[in-house]
């Protein structure tokens, strides 16, 4: 990364007379392994490196990027961004909420440096997972797995004298399996993610988890019964709690969505000014507190400063069941008369930073998982999910259980095949009457933006119990 060219781009941008300018460079050492049923289809090794400028001029925003590291190219993209900012010709002029300038450098440490791990070892990790699956006593008809490694160096400067350098290694894995038994199939996938080094593999226990999933799918095929649709209690495992927190709390609380900026793609929000829901409105029971926190060390969504140079902190989204704080970047914060809470993220130098989640999860309660189950007379325990989705105002959602069991008189019974909860955000979080002690996280890739920017996040939470919901 040639920082002098980035500095030059900023200085040239400032000389154009823009109201605001920033330059952001990123160099990413990438490795990708792609396997099909234990066969390495391809090993990708590349370095992607480039920089962008973003400018506000006459109340409009222009953004341009390049991966050609020359001063001439820097000048060209500044000219483009400046020209594009001015053609916006907006009635409502864009401005950014105030921020202190920052000069700092931050890094994520690796206990076992990824750079020191040989390609052979990386390959063998995944080949071994497949071997273990093929001898686990379940007929695994096909697997697909991938590993992504990104060693990312960033350099950020803006016209308000901020200058931030960072280095973040991230490692991710994805495994998809198909189990075939008795002429039927069931499928599952698991995603793993970590900010840090190769030590991630020891923590993930991928092989054990995938063998567990294979056995669960076999049980669903051979022993699973369907649930009789009706009103009952539902216990959601941390995986289900986490996806619900992400989809029906994190997304609707993104201020750009609330203000309509994503309206034609990811949509808007059930929260809007003048509507039935706003800050201070109850959306769930008082045992529900959902936070988004980029500062969890080594989490997949970790960062110390966002991509506008704002220091990261925990955000309380729903607090004791009440809508509390939106996710903001500097643009949305200015429009709603507040300060950014460091939610501006970009996946690469060639993408504009937009409002994103980091690690979204339900805070813990006081009960054990066993205590949650003990109090259920008739219900379902949905430990994990398969199909899920939510509408674009983030109000009507559906989760279909992957590993699920019937609960009768406080005891877990037989497996349930694909139980479904299809309900609204308000009904879901209002029905929660108890929350367990132990919080667990899952890695995920959150999609938003056009072109799409899949950002690494954690979803998570404890087990939660919903009283009297419709399950089918």
């Amino acid at each position, binding site marked *: 990364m040639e920082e002098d060219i980035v500095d030059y781009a900023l200085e040239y941008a400032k000389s154009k007379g823009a109201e605001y300018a920033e330059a952001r460079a990123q160099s990413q050492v990438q490795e990708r392994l792609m396997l099909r049923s234990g066969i390495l289809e391809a090993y990708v090794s590349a370095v992607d490196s480039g920089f962008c400028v973003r400018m506000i001029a006459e109340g409009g925003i222009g953004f341009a990027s390049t991966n050609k590291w020359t001063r001439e190219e820097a000048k060209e993209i500044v000219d483009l961004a400046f020209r594009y900012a001015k053609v916006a010709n907006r009635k409502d002029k864009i401005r950014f909420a105030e921020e202190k300038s920052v000069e700092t450098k931050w890094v994520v440490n690796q206990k076992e440096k990824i750079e020191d791990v040989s390609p052979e070892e990386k390959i063998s990790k995944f080949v071994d997972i497949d071997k273990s699956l093929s001898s686990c006593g379940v007929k695994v008809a096909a697997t697909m797995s991938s590993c992504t490694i990104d060693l990312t160096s960033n350099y950020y400067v803006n016209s308000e004298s901020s200058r931030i350098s960072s280095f973040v290694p991230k490692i991710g894995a994805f495994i998809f399996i198909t189990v075939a038994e008795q002429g039927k199939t069931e499928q599952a996938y698991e995603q793993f993610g970590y900010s840090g080094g190769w030590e991630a593999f020891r923590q993930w226990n991928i092989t054990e988890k995938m063998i567990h999933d294979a056995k669960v799918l076999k049980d669903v095929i051979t022993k699973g019964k369907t649930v009789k649709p009706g009103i009952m209690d539902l216990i959601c495992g941390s995986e289900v709690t986490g996806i619900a927190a992400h989809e029906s709390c994190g997304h609707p609380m993104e201020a750009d969505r609330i203000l309509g900026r994503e309206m034609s793609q990811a949509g808007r929000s059930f929260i809007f000014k003048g*509507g039935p829901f706003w800050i201070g409105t109850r959306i769930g029971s008082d045992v529900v507190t959902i936070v988004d926190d980029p500062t969890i060390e080594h989490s997949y969504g970790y960062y110390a400063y966002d991509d506008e140079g704002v220091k990261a902190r925990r955000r309380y989204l729903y607090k004791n069941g009440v809508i509390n704080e939106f996710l903001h970047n500097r643009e949305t914060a200015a429009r709603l008369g507040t300060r950014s809470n460091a939610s501006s993220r970009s996946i690469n130098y060639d993408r504009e930073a937009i409002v994103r989640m980091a690690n979204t999860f339900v805070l813990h309660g006081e009960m054990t998982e066993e205590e949650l189950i003990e109090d259920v007379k008739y219900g379902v325990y949905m430990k994990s999910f398969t199909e899920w989705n939510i509408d674009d105002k983030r109000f009507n959602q559906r989760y279909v259980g992957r590993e699920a069991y019937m609960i009768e008189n406080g005891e877990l019974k037989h497996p349930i095949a694909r139980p479904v909860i299809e309900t609204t955000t308000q009904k879901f979080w209002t029905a929660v009457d108890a929350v367990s002690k132990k919080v667990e996280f899952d890695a995920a890739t959150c999609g938003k933006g056009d072109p799409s920017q899949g950002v690494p996040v954690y979803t998570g939470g404890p087990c939660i119990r919903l009283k009297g919901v419709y399950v089918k």
Partner: protein
Amino acid sequence: MNDVLNKTGEIVKKAKALGADEVIAKTTFGMYRQVRFSNNQVDTTVAWNDYVTDVALAWKKRVVVTQIHNFYEVDARIKKLLELAKVSKENPMFGGFAKGSFRYAKSKADERLRDLENPTDYVFEAINAAEKEVGSQIDSGGILFTKFEDVYLVSSEGPVGVDSRSAIELSIRVFSEREASGHSVECSSTLKDFKPAKAGMKAGEIARLAKNPKAGDEGVYDVVFDPLIFGSLLGVWASMTSAFNVMVQLSVFVNKLDQKVAPEIVVLKDNPSAYSLANRLFDDEGVPTRENVIIDHGVLKTYLHNTSTAKIFKTETTGNAGLVVPTPWNIEMNPGDMDKNEIFKELKMGLYLTNTWYTRFQNYTKGDFSTIPRDGIFLMEKGEIRQSWKDIRISDNALSLLTNIAGISKERQHVHWWGEADPPSLSPYVLIKNVHITKSK
């Protein structure tokens, strides 16, 4: 131009000289422009200049891939890539890259799409057309995207090709009320055929008709799918015909070759021809792209292949090679024999759906999935709108929907939208019987 082709060829020569068995290098000089707008105003205008050479090489059936971003770092990158190949693991199913010399058609890319002077003009053309439909209370958002790529491909196995690929697309979503919206797109490979006002007018019309929606009712309905939402379904079926997805069981078409998967009236093709956003003369192995009939009068005739998957399935490549796995380019459904109006008249009582998003599967081999219709959702009676609806979900099966196609319009629209109607398609109005609709409880 020749200079870039020569430099791309140099990469292949260097890799061969270092010991690679087979090498492909593809250099793309891309200029991409985008205008994003919401609340009837431009939020940001974006320019990306991207210069990249994708390199795939094989050494003793070990396949490794890299990207080179400037021609000065070639020696080091290729050397490193070959070292990686030597410690990598053999893929016994690797069938080599495509062999032979091919003649390609001439590119019809539109040079004017290299860098539009005033891209925001097209946005306001669409907004103004929408406003004529919904009035001054209009709230609209969307994107205008343009692409111009110069592509240079050299393969050690023979293919050498130069292509230029242009595209322009506009996506506009229009709200007439908080919960009443319409969405439409306009997609073209040339500026001459690009009519943004058409998209604005259609999105505005749907938004106007969608006013005062009520929560829909669960049930089983006959449904007319607008070309935009049907484009989403075409995208789902198309991705399931990639031979790689078949092998990893991300497909409802596993073991269904030469079987009836749809009624007689269904003919489905992959064809990245000149009009398409995905236009291209050759695939990533240098094989000329072509029209492939995937479903012929209801019978599944082929999966989409690169050279390796074709060998596994004992057939020939279909010209769908991506750098590693085969991919669909542009899906076309043959037109039917009904006018659009006849399709609607056929709907005695049912739904007209215009758009959807968030399609997710429980099980790809079984095909069970759900997706969430958005924008105009209409309860129809004898071809007329009886009521505007909201808050419903299609909870059905990908194979059942294909099997239950009962009518296809003569009219087709070239559609593409975000990741939801992707890859691009040439999509008609389609009547599907017995579609399962669910809702929140």
